[in-house]
């Protein structure tokens, strides 16, 4: 394997807006807020930035295509700015691109900024998926939604592991209840209310067997990161956060059209995790990872991520859910800020928002939700659907 990105770059500044339905604010306004926080945190000025990566996905409906919206909103002085889009992994892609550019020496200071403003389409949920994957799919693919796609994994998981709908839904409800409790402690989260398991179990059905509280919300927000070479990071601040792994894996769609995939896991997450652990030199993730921010677009997604990232054994994530393994005071807290469940999911910003939480946790700045002495924080993005997706996994540490 190639040498990898481990310990080559560090984050010296981050920003994140409050996530929510910003009816009275534009995407540009959110961009400026995340950016101003990040440069202030890094102690740099706009003119110090050599290059920028701008992640958006659906935001063509709002800011439009290309990287111009970022350059224009921030009045960046004719520097290279690139738009990246890779479904829900877009934010992680922006950080990856910025990191690679800095590590190569092509530039010294790079910005990754993601934004998504989704609430201007006139209806709930994500924009209609019928044209997401091109006009051919429109002809020959069901008009699926994200909850429907992930619900099919829940149907299959319950069936395979012999969970009754009641048992299965209760396990999933515990995951959502945990994240809502953490979200209540996080000022920038969209939803800041504890929700009990019974309420979650009895919520209106969105896509059977997933109910309202099994689904993350649609929201708006922006997040930013400023990246420099690791050996220069201490010149900017005493507590930079170092990259340990930055991996993307993309499904060749075997799962989706070949009869081998069992439908109860996300193969691409597993593959991406394997590579990320290798890059970071992690042998036993259950023992070595301190905390995780994963792509809990739906409760079932988080359940199978536990297994795909090799934290819980296959088919046994339920035991860890029941024992509180992933709770804020458990061995590996998952979604310490409330996750997508509480923040919602502005596609282009989410990956960077996850890193923001790990960054703040590693610096010990998370107040009442602070995790004790974290060393390694993992983020995970899932763009697309269980059977055909883009996965991003990043691992960060507070020591070189």
């Amino acid at each position, binding site marked *: 394997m190639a040498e990898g990105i481990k310990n080559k770059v560090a984050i010296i500044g981050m920003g994140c807006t409050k996530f929510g339905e910003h009816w009275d604010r534009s995407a540009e306004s959110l961009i400026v807020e995340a950016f101003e926080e990040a440069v202030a945190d890094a102690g740099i000025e706009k003119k110090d930035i050599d290059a920028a990566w701008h992640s958006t996905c659906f935001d063509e409906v709002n800011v439009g295509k290309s990287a111009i919206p970022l350059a224009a909103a921030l009045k960046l002085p004719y520097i290279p700015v690139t738009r990246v889009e890779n479904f829900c992994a877009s934010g992680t892609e922006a950080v990856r691109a910025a990191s690679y550019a800095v590590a190569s020496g092509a530039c010294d200071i790079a910005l990754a900024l993601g934004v998504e403003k989704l609430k201007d*389409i006139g209806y709930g*949920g994500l924009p209609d998926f019928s044209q997401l994957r091109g006009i051919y799919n429109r002809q020959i693919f069901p008009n699926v939604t994200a909850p429907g796609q992930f*619900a099919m994994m829940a149907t299959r998981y319950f069936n395979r592991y012999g969970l009754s709908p009641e048992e299965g839904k209760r396990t999933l409800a515990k995951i959502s209840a945990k994240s809502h409790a953490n979200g209540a402690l996080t000022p920038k989260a969209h939803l800041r209310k504890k929700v009990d398991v019974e309420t979650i179990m009895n919520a209106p059905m969105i896509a059977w067997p997933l109910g309202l509280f099994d689904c993350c919300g649609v929201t708006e927000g922006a997040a930013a990161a400023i990246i420099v070479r690791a050996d220069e990071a201490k010149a900017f601040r005493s507590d930079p956060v170092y990259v340990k792994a930055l991996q993307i894996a993309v499904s060749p769609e075997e799962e989706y059209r070949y009869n081998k995939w069992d439908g109860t896991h996300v193969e691409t997450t597993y593959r991406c995790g394997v590579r990320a652990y290798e890059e970071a030199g992690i042998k036993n993730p259950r023992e070595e990872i301190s905390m995780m921010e994963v792509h809990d677009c739906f409760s079932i997604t988080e359940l199978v991520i536990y297994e795909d990232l090799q934290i819980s054994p296959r088919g046994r994530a339920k035991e860890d859910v029941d024992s509180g393994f992933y709770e804020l005071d458990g061995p590996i807290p998952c979604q310490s800020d409330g996750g997508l469940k509480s923040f919602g999911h502005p596609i282009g910003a989410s990956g960077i928002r996850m890193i923001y939480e790990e960054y703040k946790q590693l610096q010990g700045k998370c107040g009442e939700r602070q995790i004790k002495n974290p060393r390694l924080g993992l983020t995970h993005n899932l763009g697309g659907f269980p059977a055909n997706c883009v996965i991003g996994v990043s691992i960060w540490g507070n020591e070189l």
Partner: protein
Amino acid sequence: MQEGGINKMTGITAYGVYLPYYRLKRETIFKAMGWFNPGIAGQAKGEKAIANYDEDSLTMAVAAGMDCFTDISREKINTLYLASTTLPNKERGNASIACGALNLSPNTRVAEFSGCLKSGTTALITALNEPDSELTMITASDCRLGKAGGTQEQLSGDGAVAIAVGNEGVIASLVDHYSLSYDFADYRRMESDKFTRSWEERWIRDAGYFKIIPEAIKGLLTKCGLQINDITKVVYPPLSIRDHRDLAKRLGLKPDQVQPHLIESIGNTGSAHPLVMLIAALEEAQPGDKILVASFGSGSDALLFEVTEDIKKLKNRNKLKKNLDYKGELENYTKYLSFKGMLAKEIGIRGEELTPTSLSLAWREQNAVLRLVGSKCKVCGTPQYPSERICINPDCGAVDQMEDYSFSDKTGHLFTYTADNLTYSEDPPALYGIVDFEGGGRYWFDLTDCRLESLEVGQPVQMTFRRRYLDEVRSVAGYFWKVMPFKG
């Protein structure tokens, strides 16, 4: 054989039936609309077959055609006729769409018969007079619509049949036929009409139904030198239950000579109906039986068949019976109105979003979209859909080693499924799932003719050709394949 007629024995070699899954009780219609028209109380008996929201005359004709493939080989069909008064396209070959969906050779000659309710029998006569055609498939299908609260709403039903005509394996040979064509404008629709209009019912009965059908039957019997008593079963469509019975008396038929009209179970299926009843007769027939079928609509066609020994060789004779038994009740009258496009619903902004159809893409990908033909890798043997240049099997990955492979005739198992309340559906929640095909291949489909509560992982399923969307703004219907519970 009659002079100038057919040299070899020509006749029916196979048949297929398709009745849509839903039945609407006439009592349900009466409860909803009796306040407006108490006169329909007398008809509020039994039920009628109703096409699902994703069906039309074209999709039903395809389903009936596929039902024939138990006994004939699709490769031998070189002519396809589609008869209906309710075909969805006025300018875009409905029969060519059916030809593709049935995965017939592009070399098939197709034609559409329309304009009146005898179009089904006219298509059949035409097929029987073509000795050059090795095998002709006739499909007749209708979804006629009566306005809310009217008699036609009570009487008309939806359904389709297919009949294969050829010279080999004839199960019922043609003796002769006789036709009458009159401008008897009992029921009518013009270009812009969605609903059937009619003249006074007593006039239709006394001046038309009681006169024209007997005239056609008499003409045919005279031509054949036969008496009505020589006929085993007489098939003619109903106007109403009582009129059908009264006509039997006028024809001098004994009760066992009268083929039941099916009004109580499915309604009058228009162009298809005389042939639906003919199939009902064939299901019960013995070799040597003489079956006379007469249609009614702008005249009448009468045909006489003699059943042969080969009828015993049919793999499945009881196709109509199976279709009559395979059903579910549509309990809700407003749902019926909605399925028929008679209800302006609040579909929401998500529902209003309709991506344009690319017709150039549909043409380029016709194998996948219309025929549900994917491919099988010649190297590793993996069936896959849709066809791509590189094999999907990760252990193979062969490039350009694909041969066509049909999935529409394969059964499968439901790998997983959901019921989606978020996506727009004409019948929410939208059911869709993943199917693993027998023999290999996996793909994702909408599920139809079922409910969430009845679904199970692993259950057997089969394919059905449906209308996936109707883009009225751009006048295009998108057809594709869905999955339904295994019906056999």
